[in-house]
């Protein structure tokens, strides 16, 4: 069965955490060949542009409260950039910029 993660406020998570981890790692696999900074930005901006904010929060909660179990290290790096806006490339299509 799917892992579920009880959120701090007791609300139902938007979806099962193992789906979130799987999807995030797949995104990480794509951006892996890019140099570190571009890789992290690519992951960040993909999550920012395509993921429902509740999915992003679930991912960040896993990283910030759970140590990011199951996530590739570079996926965590990219996801952490979601907490700030300096790496935002809004409305951009193409290879990750840095």
């Amino acid at each position, binding site marked *: 069965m799917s892992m579920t993660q009880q959120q701090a406020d007791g609300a139902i998570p938007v979806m099962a955490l193992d789906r979130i981890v799987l999807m995030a790692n797949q995104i990480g696999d794509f951006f892996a060949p890019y140099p570190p900074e571009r890789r992290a930005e690519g992951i960040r901006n993909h999550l920012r*542009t395509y993921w429902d904010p509740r999915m992003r929060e679930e991912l960040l909660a896993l990283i910030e409260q759970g140590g990011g179990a199951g996530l590739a290290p570079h996926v965590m790096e990219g996801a952490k950039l979601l907490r700030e806006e300096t790496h935002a490339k809004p409305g951009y299509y193409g290879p990750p910029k840095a």
Partner: protein
Amino acid sequence: MPNPLKPEKSVVTTCAYCGVGCGFKAETRGGKIVRMTPWKEGKANHGHSCIKGRFAYDYYNAPDRVRTPLIRASIDDPWTPVSWDEAFAYAAKEFKRIQAKYGVKSVGAVSSSRCTNEEIFLTQKFARAVLGNNNIDNCARICHSPTQFGLTNTVGAGAASQHFDSILQADVIMVVGANPTEGHPVFGSLMKRRIRQGAKLIVIDPRKTETVESAHCKADVHLAIRPGTNVAILDSIAHVVVREKLYNEEFVRARCEVNEFENWKALVGSDNYAPEVIGPLAGVDPDDIRKAARIYASGPNSAIYYGLGVTEHSQGSTGVMCLGNLGLSCGMLGREGVGVNPLRGQGNVQGGSCLGSWPHVFSGYRFVTDYETRSSFEAEWGVPLDAEPGLRLPNMLDAAVAGSFKGMYIMGEDPVQSDPNQHHVIAAMRNMECVVLHDLFLNETSKYAHIFFPGSSSLEKDGTFTNAERRVSRVRKVIEPLAGLEDWQITVKLMNAMGYNVNYTSAGEVLDEIARLSPNYRGISFALVDRIGSAQWPCNEDAPEGTEVLHREKFPRANGLGTFMLTEYVPTAERTNDKYPLLLTTGRILSQYNVGTQTRRTPNSMWHSEDVLEINEQDSISRGVKDGDWVKVSSRFGEIEVRARISERVNPGVVYTTFHHAKSKANAVTSDLSDWATNCPEYKVTAVDVVRTNGPAADAARDAATPRIAEMEPAE
């Protein structure tokens, strides 16, 4: 035979089936459709047709067509026929109740690529402006979402670069993961015409399809790859292009981001992608990889056509990027006879993509996170809009299983039959409190629906379709809607019932709103399409009658340059092992269409009455399976029973089936893996085993116990 009866009237309209979008004349006699004949001025078909559009139209009048709205409190209850007003009021009450209880984001909507542009646009308007969230998706999610993502990231536009006729200027035709002679027959005929004139043909497909070899057409190279190795093989072709310096340096320097080209060269040019490495992995001769690369790069005009064999993978978007990279590197974009072109499965997949039925973009592929775009929609619609992306269809289902998603408006879709990992989809459906299904028939999903809106077929309504070559054509009402309302009217009335006041006197007014809000459609109107027959977007001040070939001068990216993505091959997690030693891949056949909702009701089923499993003789012998035997196909996700057909079309280790019949439940076995970028399901690769059986097991008691319509009465 006596002389036939002469039709009395004729209306020019657009076919409801595949993405070719043929023009037809629907001929009537006594108010009934008696014939569909191909329209000679149809710019996608030039007077030609296929078995589906030409003959399989009578489904519209099938006895089990639902002609009155239905509701029920629980999916275990029988349906109760009600008036339209009652159905709208009930749906509105339920959506409001759920949103009050579980939050604004606990509901969403899905539109279909069989719907018109106007309906698709209205469905996203319903989600964004009325439900107040961005939980809106469409069925391109499960077929061509990687096309939008992969092409936009390389060439800047997630659409075919060419018009169909362009193929008559091609010297080399490369077909990847597509079978046009079955899936897009009228385009397939045009392709064959060009091959008979001497164009070379490269086919990349695990299966020896009809496209590989047929009368007077034979592929110069067929790379019969193992399912799931697309990216590896395309990178290997790129490797040969790079190492043998077959790329078009002049084009790349003038038209592309050179730095990214160099990065790409370093990646695909590495020894990892040498044909001698990739050939054994993909199950093809390294010399054939080199041959394919040399033929493609030498053109002089090489055109790529691809289908779901590229997109429906965990690396679907990467595969599309590979094609974009390849086209750019060899300079095969921006003129007649070249290009990178998706072949769209359903009539309006391109429209579905263009018109904002996505959780992250408005019509015209502009992000919901973008303030200016959002403001323009807020101004037109008069309500504040959600600034964050919503849930995609698979994520809505995931969220329904998790319990955070409770209601859905499904327009013209059958997720239970067509979405992957059927058990998961059913669990999601059962967990929802209000599923509103808007369709012609009580499909598989209807078993889990609470409200049913009887829709109108494309013969019963006005609107437009956008075909695979970006061509916007008219859908015209030939007969009155059997259930009383055109589909776009149903969505508008649902919006009204929810308290959102909007009114359109015709579908043309919806198109006018689309044109106001979407740059590529700015010049398109019923008046224009009626006057010139059809128009390919972009259609605007610069191109008042549309644009046939994209990217002639520059690419629609901020700096006008094409770019290269790094397309590292990442094998899918779906692997064969001792328990599941074969790879199952899926496809379609000429006479049937997708899940068969339309074609299974017509005599087309005489050609294909059931889905069968193609299996190579070697694999069949080792399993004691003879031609025509029943076999059980099992995967990590489920099992199905179908008959086996021993076939040389598939290599040892690969089995193939179609997914047209509900009873064979092909998606009970497909995996829950999906594309990394878009969640497009990986239908094309599932590890399975095949064993001989004595026949179909008595199926789930659920089917027998399914509540049917209690009684049918006409709507008020």
